[in-house]
């Protein structure tokens, strides 16, 4: 009993000697790992600390510590004037957030999931995205709309839609979607600092995943550029574009393809709007083949835009038709086996890449 309490006291005094951010200091030469959740939380914390105009608003962001604990500890640190729990009224609180941005504050509005953003979509598009243009530059809107996007696990049709394509089609918005912890930190910090409305699409299933981060990433000044994709894995045979959770799947597919002698280049889009067309096209000009991967509905999706861009800019370089891997063209079912069929799996990406690399069946002329 005494031994335990003495250890506890020792442990506590150790805490005092440690530097201010004990969780983020590495004690070995191995890279530090943090979860996407920690990455987002630290990004919010640092940006709120750096700029008093930044404030958070959303359902359960304060006392509940965040529906997915992304905003944990921030109410305690910054107080109820800067971390605001809202009633369940998306249209109302989103409009209030946009109005605050008109005045010059920097709101970060959380949607518990982006499915609920549809209740507020008029404010995102008509009140936020278009204002700088309609006012010829008088009214800029430095707001961030963030929250989980796309499929979770077993949450059914109304809670699983991916909104990347919808928001990315709208001029005046910037749309970002991080994959790992580095992306989460760098892109969220960039979004909060950006003077335009940014839609920040996270993924619930990635929140608990850990990824290595360098000291540079952990520094409070770290920021990633908006509009630039990242080549996660270099390759020469086929280009695979993806964002958010699908980047992980694409990387797994690339490992499997390598065993068959196909070296895939995996591009993590990071930014859906602006889309990094030059990185995508440069890659396709090198590999001559393209697979686009996304979780959302296929029609009029992100992959469709990437395909059109490559056909317009790099047609002569394509050795095979562009392949699209996307969510199934159905509302998301609940039953586990059907749900599995409704979202892309690694084997889908592998199969499409192989199709693009060699024809499995010779083409015959059709009447």
């Amino acid at each position, binding site marked *: 009993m005494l031994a335990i309490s003495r250890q506890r006291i020792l442990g506590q005094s150790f805490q005092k000697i440690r530097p201010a951010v004990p969780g983020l200091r590495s004690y070995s030469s191995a890279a530090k790992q943090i979860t996407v959740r920690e990455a987002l939380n630290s990004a919010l914390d640092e940006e709120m600390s750096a700029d008093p105009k930044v404030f958070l608003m959303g359902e359960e962001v304060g006392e509940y510590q965040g529906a997915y604990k992304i905003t944990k500890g921030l109410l305690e640190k910054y107080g109820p004037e800067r971390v605001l729990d809202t009633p369940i*009224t998306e249209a109302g609180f989103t*409009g*209030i957030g946009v*109005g*605050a941005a008109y005045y010059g*504050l920097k709101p970060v509005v959380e949607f518990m999931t982006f499915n609920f953003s549809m209740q507020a979509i008029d404010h995102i598009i008509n*009140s936020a995205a278009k204002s700088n243009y309609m006012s*010829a530059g008088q009214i800029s809107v430095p707001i961030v709309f963030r929250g989980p996007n796309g499929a979770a696990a077993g949450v059914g049709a109304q809670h699983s839609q991916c909104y990347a394509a919808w928001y990315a089609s709208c001029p*005046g918005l910037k749309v970002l979607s991080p994959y790992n912890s580095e992306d989460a930190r760098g892109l969220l910090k960039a979004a909060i600092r950006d003077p335009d409305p940014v839609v920040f699409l996270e993924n619930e299933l990635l929140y608990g995943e850990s990824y290595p981060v360098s000291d540079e990433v952990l520094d409070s000044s770290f920021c990633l550029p908006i509009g630039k994709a990242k080549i996660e894995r270099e390759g020469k045979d086929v280009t695979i574009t993806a964002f958010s959770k699908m980047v992980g799947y694409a990387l797994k597919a690339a490992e499997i393809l390598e065993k068959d002698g196909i070296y895939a280049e995996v591009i993590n889009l990071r930014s859906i709007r602006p889309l990094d067309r030059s990185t995508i096209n440069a890659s396709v000009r090198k590999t001559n083949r393209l697979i686009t991967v996304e979780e959302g509905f296929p029609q009029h999706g992100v992959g469709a835009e990437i395909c059109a861009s490559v056909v317009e800019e790099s047609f002569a370089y394509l050795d095979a038709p562009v392949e699209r891997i996307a969510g199934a063209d159905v509302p998301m079912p609940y039953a586990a086996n059907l749900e599995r069929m409704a979202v892309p799996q690694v084997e889908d990406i592998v199969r499409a890449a192989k199709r693009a690399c060699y024809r499995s069946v010779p083409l015959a002329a059709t009447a």
Partner: protein
Amino acid sequence: MALSYLRSSSSSSANLKLLSSAVSIRRPISTDTTPITVETSVPFTAHQCEAPSRSVETSSSELLNFFRNMALMRRMEIAADSLYKAKLIRGFCHLYDGQEAVASGMEAAITKKDCIITAYRDHCIFMGRGGTLLEVFAELMGRRAGCSKGKGGSMHCYKKDSNFYGGHGIVGAQVPLGCGLAFAQKYSKDETVTFALYGDGAANQGQLFEALNISALWDLPAILVCENNHYGMGTAEWRASKSPAYYKRGDYAPGLKVDGMDVLAVKQACKFAKEHALKNGPIILEMDTYRYHGHSMSDPGSTYRTRDEISGVRQERDPIERVRKLILSHDLATEKELKDIEKEMRKEVDDAIAQAKESPMPEPSELFTNVYAKGLGVESFGADRKEVRATLP
């Protein structure tokens, strides 16, 4: 002493000379600030609060300013009607004539640090905030000299430097936005308020109640002003609202019903509301007003109301006529002097229109400006992207 809120400084001295020469034999009228007390047409009706007094303090100077401002607004809207019929204005054009007392009275009670946000019937509010006739007419005609450089149009006039946040086309959206402005004012500890204007048609919007709920919970200095002109486009209030007592619709939020055709009542109510909102959070003002034009230029305005009703309001309740009678009965100016002011306003409007017509349309490169505040050197495209591309600054 400023002659009016609407005039640019270069012309005001010339007009001061004009007026003083016209009245050189008589006492100076437009600069007299001796308090005069006037009773509002009807008492205020209150909900969940104590109504302010019917006795309003004003002055010769203020009354003449009201007359001048409202006459200018009236003239501007009527001229816009002609321009629309001449096809110089396209698309939507929602005119405010009849409702001038709301815009004028409000300005007299507040400062340019207070915020105003409204819907699409915004030309006169923009003028009240210090906008110029040229900026309005050029914007309506889609020219470079417009307040939004021709890129917004009738429904999207803004003047951020005097805290006018538009000009919104989506019915009801401006109310949560206005509550957001109030939030930011409180956050910044500015001790100022926001007036969010909406119509009887917008009064049933769910987002209004969502925003009011949050404003009341967080004690935001938001004043929701229902400009009840009794028709939401072609639908009379009794067909649209189960309860057309809009000043009571706030339930837990206090409200005041005001004769919106009486500029002094408007001023008194807005002054009361500002004091209230700074201390106690949101309050609703229902301005009982009327528009002479239809909903927009494509609506004759006579299929859902009788011509007798329209002419009846014009005869009994016209806001400019009320002020004219007040000025004459208090012997503050002669009929001729007032007619001269109206002629002067007409000339100002005509001059501004002529100037606006001279202003060219925006440069084609303006298609791609202001998409973002920070364009990041990103590419944007025209209809044929192989033909027209631009880099966003």
